[in-house]
């Protein structure tokens, strides 16, 4: 008898899961429906490059439905709510979808309205964010016309998607203005709620050092209570201030809005409480979550979604077959960190292991150095978009890179006690 899977969200996670599951099951055995509110699939890592004139919104988007293999139903509409007891999804076009398995892949949304003054400042063009295609495009105009002054780059609070992107923005801004011969007229200030450039000690020291080298001021433990758009100030809850001439903000993130309208589905931030190694939600056994929508203790990043996809496909298969789930997602994540001047860093980590120096994916041979600037890493980041559309989304493996974090190739001397 045919079973049905409903996948909420047609982004990275939703597309990967739909394609992998479609390949694993005959069309008569499993119906797969993907729901998304629009047909514009963006390669989100590309947003970072738009403000610097290195990319455009058109260059990094493709139709969502076209990324889905044949035999997958694509339903374009907003999601109203999920009834987790009746196992029904209610859609804005008044249709209802019943499910045997639900995969929540609707990601994270920006909630500037949760910070006093921020939504108003964004609407009034007194603050900008590169976390949306329109925002990144507007920021490109601002940077091109920026004659001098203080640019503040601010993360309001964690969690955010792609935690390294604000740092990358700072590094690229340094490069951009240096290239234009205007760096001396610009002050760059990186304002973070964290107690360092990064949370984990080894990477924090490396990245903090780079910020200092590039003359980017670092303001830490700054929790924004209010954004004064007209006055050009960030004000913290403990009454410190950072004045600016241009604000690049990364607003607070929550899960998708319908999660908050679905009793029992989400947590206080509308993310889905999820088992960190099986990716089954902790709210109902037939509900799973992947990507930014899940509340698990690892970064919200595309690489995480990709590595989760392999494990989750297997666990959905086991669930449908009535078998015990396999606890095997190890929290693997990796991120290229653009540092400007045609170089990038690469970090590779998981639940147990913080970002460490070394080589990736193989010890010795590499070829990519970890936690170290290199041109090869920068090329890797640029080329990655091709792999995204042609390997990652279709649910194919990326050559040489398995789901688990490679343990070899990491230099642990900074973190391990000498024997």
């Amino acid at each position, binding site marked *: 008898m045919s079973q049905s899977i409903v996948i909420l969200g047609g982004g990275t996670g939703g597309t990967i899961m739909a394609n992998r599951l479609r390949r694993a099951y005959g069309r008569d055995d499993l119906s797969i429906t993907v729901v998304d509110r629009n047909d514009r699939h963006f390669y989100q890592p590309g947003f970072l490059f738009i403000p610097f004139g290195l990319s455009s919104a058109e260059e990094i988007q493709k139709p969502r439905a076209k990324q889905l293999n044949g035999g997958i139903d694509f339903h374009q509409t907003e999601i109203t709510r999920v009834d987790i007891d009746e196992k029904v999804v209610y859609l804005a076009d008044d249709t209802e979808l019943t499910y045997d398995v639900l995969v929540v892949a609707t990601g994270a949304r920006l909630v500037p309205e949760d910070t006093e003054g921020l939504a108003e400042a964004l609407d009034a063009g007194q603050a900008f964010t590169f976390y949306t295609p329109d925002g990144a495009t507007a920021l490109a105009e601002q940077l091109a016309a920026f004659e001098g002054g203080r640019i503040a780059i601010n993360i309001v609070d964690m969690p955010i998607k792609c*935690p390294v992107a604000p740092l990358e923005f700072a590094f690229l801004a340094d490069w951009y203005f240096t290239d234009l011969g205007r760096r001396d007229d610009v002050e760059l200030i990186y304002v973070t*709620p964290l107690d360092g450039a990064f949370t984990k000690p080894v990477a924090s020291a490396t990245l903090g050092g780079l910020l200092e080298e590039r003359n980017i001021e670092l303001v830490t433990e700054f*929790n924004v*209570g209010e954004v004064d758009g007209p006055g050009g100030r960030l004000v913290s*809850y403990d009454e410190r201030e950072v004045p600016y001439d241009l604000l690049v903000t990364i607003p607070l993130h929550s899960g998708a809005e319908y999660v908050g309208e679905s009793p029992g589905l989400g947590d206080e931030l509308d993310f889905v409480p999820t088992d960190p190694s099986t990716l089954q939600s902790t709210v109902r056994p037939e509900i799973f979550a992947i990507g930014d929508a899940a509340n698990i203790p690892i970064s919200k990043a595309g690489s995480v979604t990709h590595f989760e996809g392999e494990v989750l496909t297997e666990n959905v298969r086991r669930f449908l077959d009535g078998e015990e789930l396999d606890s095997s997602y190890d929290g693997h994540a990796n991120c290229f960190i653009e540092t400007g001047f045609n170089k990038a860093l690469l970090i590779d980590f998981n639940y147990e292991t913080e970002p460490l120096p070394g080589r990736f994916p193989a010890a010795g041979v590499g070829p990519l150095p970890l936690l170290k600037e290199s041109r090869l890493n920068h090329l890797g980041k640029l080329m990655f978009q091709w792999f995204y559309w042609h390997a990652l989304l279709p649910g194919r493996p990326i050559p040489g890179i398995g789901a688990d974090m490679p343990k070899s190739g990491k230099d642990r001397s900074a973190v391990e006690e000498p024997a």
Partner: protein
Amino acid sequence: MATKTVAGVEVDVNDEGFFTDPEQWTEEMVPELAAEDGIDELVDEHWTVLRFMRDEYAEKGTGPTVRVLGKTSGVSVKELYQLFPKGPAKIAARVAGIPKPRGCI
């Protein structure tokens, strides 16, 4: 890894003074721990937050962020900063005898 003595008891702490074993904490230690962070007088709301921190840690394996504290502890973020100036999530965690909140990467 180090130890310190609080209310006459030796406890294990990390290099920032956070408890590495929350089981070693007792409520008797709170006034001393709070004083270390410049909090000389404790009111009911302090205790509400400290108990909430320990409950969250027990349930989720990590202390909450300021944002989650503000949403679910019953104490607003503004009040939290009055009770624990300069970083409620971090300071309340230390005084509550739980490890430093696991800032996601």
